[in-house]
């Protein structure tokens, strides 16, 4: 589904990603961990198409298409979703109107008729129940005045509505208390259907107690320096990142 080869990227001349290689197959959950400044958020930004980053090398293909060549909206309509670390507040745009626009733009892109208003509302109601979303949130302006937890749940709700093939979750656990973390994780787990894939970017292991990864990769200095299964995350929780840093420095 997703194939990243030797991906290099920089921002304002500063090299952040120095050759990332990663293959994600349908239905897999990959966790990307690493110390601060390793390039975790840069990776998610580059995949989603944020303009601030310059890709200086490598390729990313998504279902055989060149992802890096696409505008952010086209990546989304091809089935890539980025759950933001800091979801943006947009006063004056209601969540309902926003989602209807997003879904119908995707349908237009895929050559489908727009969804009827009643079908849309029914679909939204189903997903709200599934995600245990408070109805009041959808009539309010997008993320405006939402608590940290509400914003993150809204991201997962949008994920449920847009039904992406690949979801990239950028530090979704940051700023969440344990109850919010559980709600968000439960939401994500409900979306797993054996075909959808997830790339979960996190600094801490605790999110991975709830969203159990098939693979864990450690990112350091813009490279994946170690890969393993869920046990690697547990090891990192106990030992921290220093031993990995030392391994890398010794190897270099």
């Amino acid at each position: 589904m997703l194939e990243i080869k030797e991906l290099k990227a920089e921002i304002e001349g500063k090299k952040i990603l120095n050759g990332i290689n990663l293959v994600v197959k349908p239905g897999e959950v990959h966790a990307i961990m690493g110390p601060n400044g390793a390039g975790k958020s840069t990776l998610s930004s580059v995949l989603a198409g944020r303009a601030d980053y310059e890709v200086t090398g490598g390729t990313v293909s998504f279902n055989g298409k060149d992802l890096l060549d696409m505008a952010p909206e086209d990546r989304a309509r091809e089935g890539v979703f980025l759950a933001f670390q800091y979801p943006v507040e947009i006063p004056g745009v209601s969540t309902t109107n926003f989602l209807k626009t997003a879904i119908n733009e995707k349908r237009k892109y895929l050559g489908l008729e727009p969804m009827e208003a009643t079908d849309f509302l029914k679909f939204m109601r189903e997903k709200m129940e599934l995600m245990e979303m408070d109805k009041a949130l959808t009539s309010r302006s997008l993320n405006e005045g939402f608590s940290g937890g509400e914003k993150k749940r809204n991201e997962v709700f949008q994920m449920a509505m847009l039904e992406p093939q690949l979801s990239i979750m950028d530090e979704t656990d940051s700023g969440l208390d344990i109850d919010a973390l559980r709600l968000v994780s439960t939401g994500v787990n409900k979306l797993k259907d054996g075909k959808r894939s997830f790339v979960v970017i996190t600094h801490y292991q605790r999110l991975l107690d709830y969203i159990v990864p098939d693979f864990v990769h450690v990112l350091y200095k813009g490279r994946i320096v170690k890969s393993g299964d869920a046990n690697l995350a547990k090891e990192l929780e106990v030992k921290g990142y220093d031993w990995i840093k030392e391994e890398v420095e010794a190897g270099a």
Partner: protein
Amino acid sequence: MNLQEKINQDFSQYKTQANSSDAFVQLREQAFTEFEKLGFPSTKHEEWKYTNLKPIAEQSFQATCEINPAVHAFVKQSIFSTIQANRLVFVNGSFVQELSTMLETNTEIIIGSLATERHKHKTIFEAHFGKYAQVEGQALNALNTALLSDGAFVVVPDGKTVSHPIVILNITDSSAINVLAQPRNLVVIGKSASVTIIEAYEAMGTNAAFTNGVTEVYAAENAHVEHYKIQQQAGESYQNNFTQIFQEANTNINHVTLTLDGTMVRNNLHFYMNGENCNSLLYGLYITDSKDFVDNHTRVDHAKPNCFSDEKYKGILKDQSTAVFNGKIMVHLDAQKTNAYQRNQNILLSDDATVNTKPQLEIFADDVKCTHGATIGQLDEEPMFYLRSRGIPEDVARKLLLNAFADDIAEKINIPELVTLLEQQIEHKL
């Protein structure tokens, strides 16, 4: 002849017909003297620093102009004809009876042409006309007073409510020649009376049109007024507009100005709170493109204690357009417990657009709550990327965000047709 020459000619013509023993005529003669003394304001005048009237003054004008039959079709297709309303239509400043509609059945309520109605209701006319819009030091008010053509005269007696909005539709028709229109409206709202007024400005024709309008609104105790000013004059249209709203105690005024088109628009909106517990709401939205110029000067006089005013003006600027905002809040010495808020926010969609903004507070009382502020910026990148990352293309995302920006003002409009008009203009312009 240029504008000044036309004005001189028009006034000497007027004087030959006028009866100078009439108080109204005397008022106009005094106003003309004031205008002659002041002349057109130049950009050296602090209040006119950014607004240059030279392009209008240098145009050539002729004496009179016949009404073009195409105006009928124009009025019919106007969005202001879709509103269920009492409609007064003025073309180049003259009242056109056959294009106007009256729904109001209460004969105590006066809704009509100033030129006709002032004779029938002389006492109330003379008690209010020219009492609020200052002529001294205000050249264009003086000019309007001296040479006003016609306008709306509205009187709502105590305790009455006008059941439909009153649309005052001003059309400049410059199909044949350059035109000058000087509409003058007088609105007198009695105690506990209420009314909705929509002042609309449209234009047809390709020559230049200059509208110099003055509106006086008097609101007696407990009156409630919804006042909308909608400016969308296409073509080469210049407009100077002065509105003075005079509020007695316990009155509520909700005012919204939408400036959607016009080569040069200068608005002067003044509120004077002459009693306690007044609410004054002033909202504005301007959307400018090409080389258009919009200047909103507002002044809110808190003359008495315990009044509230809320002002918000927003602008979206494209191309090489320019906007000016100058908002002054005057809190007089005994206006304790004043609450006054003022904001001006602008979004520039082009590197060549310009905004000059000057929020001003002058406070002479010591127990007040006042805030003001202004912002000028571009559309934020973060919300844009957020929307795009959900599959919404850039142009659709931009419209969503600009609609959201305008929504703040749109929600202050209680007439659905006007909200639709605004949405259409945003769709069309952006």
